[in-house]
């Protein structure tokens, strides 16, 4: 069961991390620094766009850095 979960989700780990952790992290950093997101986006919307995109990029390139 756990093995199946890991096998299925494992390759999508970076994207899930982008959504599950980076998105709220980016949003909260924007809020705490008082930065104004462009195009009238809310901090959370910026997080939800940037976080999963960073994750997808990491998944496709095979590296975060």
């Amino acid at each position, binding site marked *: 069961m756990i093995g199946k979960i890991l096998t299925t989700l494992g390759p999508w780990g970076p994207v899930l991390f982008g959504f*599950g*952790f980076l998105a709220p992290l980016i949003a909260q950093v924007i809020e705490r620094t008082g930065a104004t997101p462009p195009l009238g986006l809310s901090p959370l919307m910026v997080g939800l766009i940037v976080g999963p995109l960073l994750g997808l990029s990491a998944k496709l390139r095979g590296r975060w850095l």
Partner: protein
Amino acid sequence: MSSAMEVLAKGELDDDIEAVAAPSDRDLARQELTIARRYIGPFPVIMAAWGLGNLTCWLALWPLTISGVLPPWVAFPIATLNVILCYLPSHEAQHSNYAKSGAPLRWLNELIGYVSTIPMVLPFKLARMTHMEHHTHTNNPELDPDYGVKADTWWQAIIEGIKRRQPGRNDSYAQTLKRLGDDPVVRRTGLEAAIQVLAYWAILAALAWSGYAIEAALIWWLPRNIGVTYISLMLSWAPHFPNPERGRYRNTRYFKARIGNILVMGMEHHIVHHLHPGIPLNRNAAAFREMRPILEARGCRFETL
């Protein structure tokens, strides 16, 4: 004397030399063991207090930071130190140095092993199993789970360590479990490891979506990444560099660290640990000082880092 007699005489002489050398080898082994036994046994209170105290400190950072008592930027270096310090007490538990199997305090051994590495998210059974493989196959490129740290310089070791943790890379610990086969103990180890790692990611996401992403990043996620890099450098790369030899007395080394034994987390005397894993870390230096003449006679490596 005829040539046949000379050969015979030489053969007898060689036998005599071996007869003298063999007891010497046994004597060295006996002396080494006698010294080792003096340091093995008493409950390593310092290591136990270190493990539980370090965990308590790290756990305390959460309410202190979330309640606003401690700014996250203050918690961050403390948490990083906690991660760096969390492995070694668990390492003693991996070798059952708090209590052997069946002993009354065995539960404490396992407790320290399981909980002390929570900050670095290292599942205990996985750590124990792969560490035993490291001891059995030290410096074997195929079988030593820690061989991946091999690098020519310390900064290359850091870069290689970061590369190993990138998405899609083969995890040497997972590979080791796979190699060890379809055994119930191995399966249980893998299951426990998977649950603990999944729990880490789930807790991190739950904290982040509850409004504590910065706290989670600065107390757990970033410190874990920095700490694992530091631990890998000091505990795996430094003592075994340059990883070419496999003999009992040559697969690791004594090294004089220019930055001091504390910053290399006591690894100057790592050779004592490989020879006698039952000696706790806090007694390795004293054991080394006593064993030094024996280790020199054995041709051990004495180097500088």
